[in-house]
């Protein structure tokens, strides 16, 4: 079609991000919501890598490493919470998680 520029990547990133947002807002299964969050983080990563490529500066990629580290931490703790929650409530439906204690 035409030459692929950073804008293309950015649009892709925005689209992926929005899909993630929709996933977070619409799904009720908390595990899928977590995955949608991962999608959003990936959208951010694409953006960072694309700009690192454009600017020929690896700092963007450094930040991707940190994002991945944070994602790993988030997944570990989040899934731990889900497990603990499931053990008590037998559900992963976020609509049933509307009280702070039970």
């Amino acid at each position, binding site marked *: 079609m035409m030459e692929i520029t950073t804008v293309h990547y950015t649009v892709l990133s925005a689209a992926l991000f929005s899909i993630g*947002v929709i996933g*977070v*807002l619409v799904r009720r299964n908390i595990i899928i*919501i977590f995955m949608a969050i991962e999608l959003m983080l990936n959208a951010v990563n694409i953006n960072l890598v694309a700009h690192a490529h454009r600017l020929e500066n690896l700092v963007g990629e450094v930040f991707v490493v940190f994002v991945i580290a944070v994602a790993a931490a988030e997944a570990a703790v989040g899934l731990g919470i889900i497990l603990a929650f499931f053990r008590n409530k037998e559900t992963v439906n*976020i*609509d049933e*998680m*509307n*009280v702070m204690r039970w």
Partner: protein
Amino acid sequence: MDLIWLIPVLPGVGAALNGILGVRYFSKTVAAGIACATMGGSLLLSVFAFVQLLGAEHREHVVSLGDWIPPIPLQTVNGLGAFEVPWAFRLDPLSGMMILIVTGIGFLIHLYSSAYMSHEPRGGYVRFFCYLNLFCFFMLTLVLGSTFLVMFVGWEGVGLCSYLLIGFWYHKKSAADAGKKAFVVNRVGDFGFVLGVFLIFFTFGTLDFREVAEAAAQLPVETATFGVLSTICLLLFIGAVGKSAQIPLYVWLPDAMEGPTPVSALIHAATMVTAGVYMVGRNAVLFSQAPMIMTTVATVGVVTALLAATIGLVQTDIKKVLAYSTVSQLGYMFLATGVGAFAAAAFHLMTHAFFKALLFLGSGSVIHAMNDEQDMQKMGGMKLYMPVTFVTMFVGSVAIAGVPPFSGFFSKDEILYRTFLDNKLLWGLAVLTAGMTAFYMFRLIFMTFFGEYRGPSWGSQNGDDHAADDGGHHDDGHAHAWHGPHESPSLMTGPLMVLAVGACVAGFVGIPAALGGDNAIEHFLEPAFVAESAAHSEEGAHEVAHLSHAAEIGLMAFSVLIAAFGIALAYHLYVRRPERSKELATNWAGAHRVLTNKYYVDEAYNATLVKGTMGGARGLWTVDRKVVDGAVNGTGWFTRASAWVSHVLDKYVVDGLVNLVGWVCAEGSYIFRRGQTGLIQNYAVAALFGVFTFVTVYLVARFVGL
């Protein structure tokens, strides 16, 4: 001498070994072995270092292990200064003497403890040695530290260990409380100390003792003004007061006797409590520049000495007597520093370490023999059962009472002499205290070792043979089957004997000129107390006014007389007329009436001295309880009263407002409550709405071209 950093590190390694591995894996023998070996090692090192120091030309040696705090720019009075703290250790005459005391007495007490604590369960035993080693590590850090901050590490560390060891039997509520009390009271002092350190850095831009001293020596002496030096010294002195149990922060020390006896001997008699004295001596130059504070120090010292001595007169708990005696002796040391006799203070510190450690260990031996009985009224006649303990404790008592030629005589006399030169009133009080010291110490000896055995009876009371036999195999746990008082094992009597020798001869390093000596220790220590510049330029100018030797000897004779008088009195009351003293002790509440009605023969004594002192002691005790506590209670009452007022205010004014707000919120929240669904995603939608708004604003701004 470059290895002096090993001196504190060795016990530290021992503590780490025992603490990390030992509590789980080591047997009692191994734990005690490690603790004693590390202490022994650092004792050897100390002796080597000291010998080298004696031979060295320049009697000061600094070893820096590297940076602790790298240079940080910090504001001082002279612009930015580099706040830099190395791990530096300084060996000079003062710290050299101190490390000998700490490692020497520490080592003996480690040995003693390995027998004394043998009835502990294994875990507790190892824990004890871990703490004890840790204490030595911190104490040696404190002593050897070459800057205020390194010293502060040790300072806080010994406080921590003191807390841990006082509360060693933490399941006993009184012990745990005593530990807490010691810790909290010490914090008050430490607060002053740390403020002083801040101010020192702010003023001088350095924390090194030597540099601070040099800088301070350049400042004018604050005779009339209360300047920055005085403030620093006052703050430091507050720290010393806390650590060394002086008025008004002495209250923790008697309670600290809840800890195991070796701990009392090591920490609360020989080493840690003298840290305050050491610190003041360390900063002699600073204090010398602030005469007002010197006076304060001397006054506080002598008042503490007197007060503690009077209290000591009436105690029946053997360890309490020694505790008050310690407070009293510390007061002496402060008196000495206060009158500028830093060397005398250090000298007394050393001799005191010997005889007080000895006394404590002896009392521990007695307590051990009496199946953990501490009340002197339930002892008596112990010299039959435990001859070694008796002899060694007797030596200790003679030493503390100031009977020549035992060590206490020389050091105490030096203090009295210098005080006499400085201030006659203080001297009078000090001499009085000396008399009382002699009295209560011998009261202790007489009550414990002389007279009839007054303790509980034991299983098969068939005479001394059995009790003597028992000493050999008491390791099988006499807590379960106590066979009466007996001599302690050799691991306990050994240190006693060594210390007794020390108590006898330690004084000879400081025989005053009046008695034909040359006061070696004073000359040895002197460099540590003056600024280097002063030491060179004013060589010999540091002379104090002298009395003639005859007058000096007269003073000595007087103080010996006073001591003898105290001893005689004690002998009279507790050996010749034990029933009287017993009555006196049992009818404690009505002491006055008992005294006037029953002691016809000793009427004169009673009317003048005994009753007076007893009454005075009681009065002071009452003051302690009524006035001090009353003030506290009054504060409490005032708090309650003001609380009531504020309660009323609170109830009608504040609560009214709060309720109003609450009411408004409650009513208003009907509207907002709808949004509070507990659905996380709805909140996320709200956040998204925020994003939407921002992006829209941005977009509009772009299009409009703002």
